[in-house]
């Protein structure tokens, strides 16, 4: 995975996940996630690039049931692929998964096909009882990421950080 210089917000997200003792990150690739994933790998976190977002949720559920500290990273367009595993496994079994969702289809989106799921991401998660929290500024990363991992690992509540476009680091304009 090619990586430009890591952005400040990406560094802060990595630091907070490492501080939470995350041991494995299951993901489907996205440009905005690259800096986070390479940062986690540098800190010894196991990366698992799986074929579908649904697999990532199920993989992390299997980890969490054995006490593993797993995080799931995906693009918002992949949330549609993950809904069944979230709603029928992670939530009813109260396995507490922290989700990091890179947003498409919102501010500045130029691909019409990304818009419907991006527009619906918060509502889709909320309909399953999953709270989500937008991250728009690097200085908020510690509070937002820390809050989500605490909800997940300590409270058993699956919760999501939404990486909004204002952060930068995506393939802006594409």
């Amino acid at each position, binding site marked *: 995975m090619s990586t430009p210089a890591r952005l400040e917000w990406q560094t802060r997200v990595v630091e907070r996940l490492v501080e939470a003792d995350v041991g*494995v990150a*299951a993901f489907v690739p996205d440009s905005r996630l690259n800096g986070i994933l390479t940062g986690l790998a540098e800190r010894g976190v*196991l990366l*698992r*690039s*799986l*074929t*579908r977002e*649904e*697999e*990532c*949720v*199920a*993989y*992390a*559920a*299997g*980890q*969490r*049931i*054995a*006490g*593993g500290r*797993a995080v799931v990273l995906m693009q918002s367009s992949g949330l549609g692929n993950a809904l*069944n*595993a979230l709603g*029928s*496994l992670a939530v*009813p*079994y*109260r*396995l507490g998964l922290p989700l990091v969702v890179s947003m498409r289809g919102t501010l500045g989106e130029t691909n019409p096909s990304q818009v419907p799921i991006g527009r619906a991401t918060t509502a889709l998660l909320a309909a399953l009882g999953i709270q989500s929290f937008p991250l728009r500024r690097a200085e908020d990363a510690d509070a937002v990421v820390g809050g989500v991992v605490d909800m997940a690992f300590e409270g058993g509540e699956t919760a999501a950080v939404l990486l909004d476009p204002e952060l930068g680091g995506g393939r802006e304009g594409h």
Partner: protein
Amino acid sequence: MKATDVVRVVVETLPRATLVSSLGTATSAVRSVTDDGPHLYFGAAMGSTMAAALGLAEAVPDREVVAVIGDGDFLMGASALWSLSACRPTNLLVVVLADGTYTITGAQPISVPLRVEGVCSALDGLSGAAVVACDELADALARLPRPAVVEAAVTASAWPGPSPFVDPAEVVRNLRRSLGR
């Protein structure tokens, strides 16, 4: 073989294994054979069983994990085979209860043979087998390098045991206690 025959061979051959069962006959058969033992029973989330077993296997490398899944569930989550090929956990086995139908929804036929052995042989790092009898299954469980996927032909159509609609909280509590978590 009946679904319970398959699970019985798994339990007798690998008595310390933690099982992960998909919704339907698989969960029902595992509940029946193990007397509701401490395993990960899926009550829904069709297509996610193999991936969950992969995550569990990597979290408990000192314990064998066996995913017992229906053929319908297998097809819904078949992309996980490529993830198994990539991750290659040496403590993971998948046993597919192949009765050729979506049993829990009314036994609608599955429209294509699984060909598990051929698919697995085409992927890096996976071994596969197709078995039709209990002794063949026991032999496959003993000899196949892990990760492995075994297609076990199920010919008896009787529902194997109790309801697959499990209490998630109880499943998690019992499994964590069994794993010492």
